[in-house]
């Protein structure tokens, strides 16, 4: 029999879904700005991207604040314990209905692989996208601020795009792995209602 526990608080759920919406928007508009396709038109893509970027920045500042004041940041402390078990589960166990090696609790919401992945997103992809994005946004101030001698738009855009590709790859894997919980929809339901079904 399965039981339910309350894992995601209102703020976390709000943070998650608005971030998801913003990141998808940023991906769609960003790659249009990049020249990969044309969807909204370059001008609207730029404006939407800029707006969504600032909103995301605002959201993150808020989220960081929340994580530290609530102590929830501990959720992301990396651990290697059971990482091998997680890998094994995704590679074999999941196909044979073996029990999920990780049981979410209020204090441990993420499985060890999730912890690593999210930490990577937050410590690597995120900062890369932020810093390059900011340099990009303030391009017109470079000369005034004397930065133009150190920066080249081409490289700033290059790293921003690298980070964007990584974000896209993360997104694909992440969306798929939401179906790899106790049941196919248990993770998604948890992020919507806050209640996760566990064994």
């Amino acid at each position, binding site marked *: 029999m399965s039981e339910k526990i309350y894992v995601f608080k209102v703020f976390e759920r709000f943070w998650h879904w608005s971030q998801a919406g913003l990141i998808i928007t940023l991906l769609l508009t960003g790659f249009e700005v990049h*020249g*990969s396709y044309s969807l909204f038109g370059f001008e609207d893509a730029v404006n939407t991207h800029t707006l969504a970027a600032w909103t995301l920045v605002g959201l993150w500042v808020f989220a960081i604040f929340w994580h530290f004041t609530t102590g929830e940041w501990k959720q992301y402390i990396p651990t290697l314990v059971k990482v091998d078990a997680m890998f094994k589960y*995704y590679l074999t166990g999941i196909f044979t209905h073996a029990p999920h090696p990780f049981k979410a609790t209020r204090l441990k919401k993420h499985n060890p692989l999730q912890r690593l992945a999210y930490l990577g997103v937050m410590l690597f992809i995120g900062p890369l996208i932020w810093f390059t994005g900011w340099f990009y946004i303030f391009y*017109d101030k470079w000369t005034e601020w004397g930065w133009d001698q150190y920066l080249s738009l081409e490289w700033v*855009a290059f790293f921003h795009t690298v980070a964007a*590709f990584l974000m896209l790859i993360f997104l*694909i*894997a992440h969306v*798929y792995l939401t*179906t790899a919980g106790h049941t196919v929809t248990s993770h998604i339901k948890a992020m919507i209602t806050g209640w996760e079904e566990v064994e």
Partner: protein
Amino acid sequence: MLVKRLQYLALMLGIVLAVPVVQASSDPAAEMKPAAAVPAPAKEIRSTADHGKFKELQKDFKSGPEVTQACLTCHTEAAKQIMKTKHWTWEFLNPESKQRLGKKNVINNFCTAVPSNYEFCTACHVGYGWKDSSFDFNKQENVDCLVCHDTTKTYRKLPGMAGHPPYQDTEFPPKSGKIVPAVNLKDVAQNIGKTSRATCGACHFNGGGGDAVKHGDLDSSLKDPKKYLDVHMAKDGLNFTCGTCHETDGHNIPGSRYTPIAKPKDANPHIRGKNDSDPVTCQSCHGNKPHPQALSRLNSHTDKLACQTCHIPEYARGGKPTKTLWDWSTAGKLDKDGKPFKTKDSGGHDAYDSRKGDFKYEANVIPEYIWFNGKVNYTLRETKLDPNQVIKVNSFEGSADDGKSKIWPVKVFHGKQPYDIGNNQLVVFHTYGKDDSALWSNFNWDKAIDYGMKEIGAEYSGKYAFVSTEMSWPITHMVAPKKDALACAQCHAPQTGVGRLDKVPGIYMPGRRANEWLNTAGWGLALLTLLGVLGHGGLRIYLARKGDQK
């Protein structure tokens, strides 16, 4: 005093004459306004001087120089000022490259060269009588004041008259049956005023031998332009004249095609008169951050782009096509009666003229875009050339990283013209004249070139051929209203040939696509991830089904 009396007399006479008219009228409405028949009040003069009242100008002038002498009695320094300018000397020494330029020296790929054709070309000289190389540049009365200061629109100088207007009724073009009336010098002189779009345009709209031919951004449509054509000059808008931007100081007119200002100083926007070193740039009024805060992203473009690049989306927009090609090599074909002929293109413009060769005209042309730092180098007559290449009659210097360049729109004009195959140099040839060496009389290139080269005292091997040439003209006039400026995506486009700046090197431009290998790697990895999760998911579904069946 006398003038006042005369005016009074005229007024009385007018009323007296008007009375019978009014009486004869049976229309009561007419009776209400007898003043209608009074002579129109004299034209309002904004200047503090009415040249119509100067006794020096109450004369039946016989010639242009006579008028000039009258002008100089009051404007004592005017001729001396003019004599220092390119408008007079047709000569310019580029201080940096030391190239001796100016219409007198340069060979272009339109009408090519002035020497040996003075009488014809000097219809656009601000002087009288430059018919050959013996012209006296120090004679003050040879300065033509009227051509710039006429307000009557009746003063016209005709090619072939060495800068004089017609003093008698003259058939022009010769044998055309059209008569250009003799100029009324007294009327023109008495109605003198500031320069206007029409006076500057009389020459500058007709560069290259006809309306709209040369520049592409200067043609007669600017005489009275609508707003869509030129936001500054539109009569229902700001109604600028040429002189509003080309703010003249002692008859010296700023703005130069020999030493253009490619990257104007970042001036703060200010009004005219404030110690301007380059009044003729956009920046001198608009500054370098001209867009409002809401569009501040556009201001980040101003260090790389000339204003003209976005704000003059096309040239020759006024309904007058501009010439884009002139091939002299085909000149001289005659019809079956041995007569020169012309053919027209579908737009009614000359496609072929026996005197000049083949032409191409285009309207609403998208400019080419180049890095330009203001330095222009000319292929002069002395310059040795490589006839296997397209000769750049002038070439614009510039690059993405010299710190002095901006991206500019230019008209590139293509030509084919004769050169000396013995010396590998461009030649001067004699196009116009009443003698039998002129190309337009005899259609004999040998004689025409021989004559032209003798005229300038240059060595000529006696053998010529035609070489392909190219000339660039910066586009700077015909500034469109802001709603017609280029939109972002017209440049920020993947490099498929539609982006305006596709061919401009040395810049990273979002949307243009660079680093294709990054795209390949990025999309490739994303695709692999997608395939991975699909495979994983597929396997899960498959195995789950199989499990169910058991």
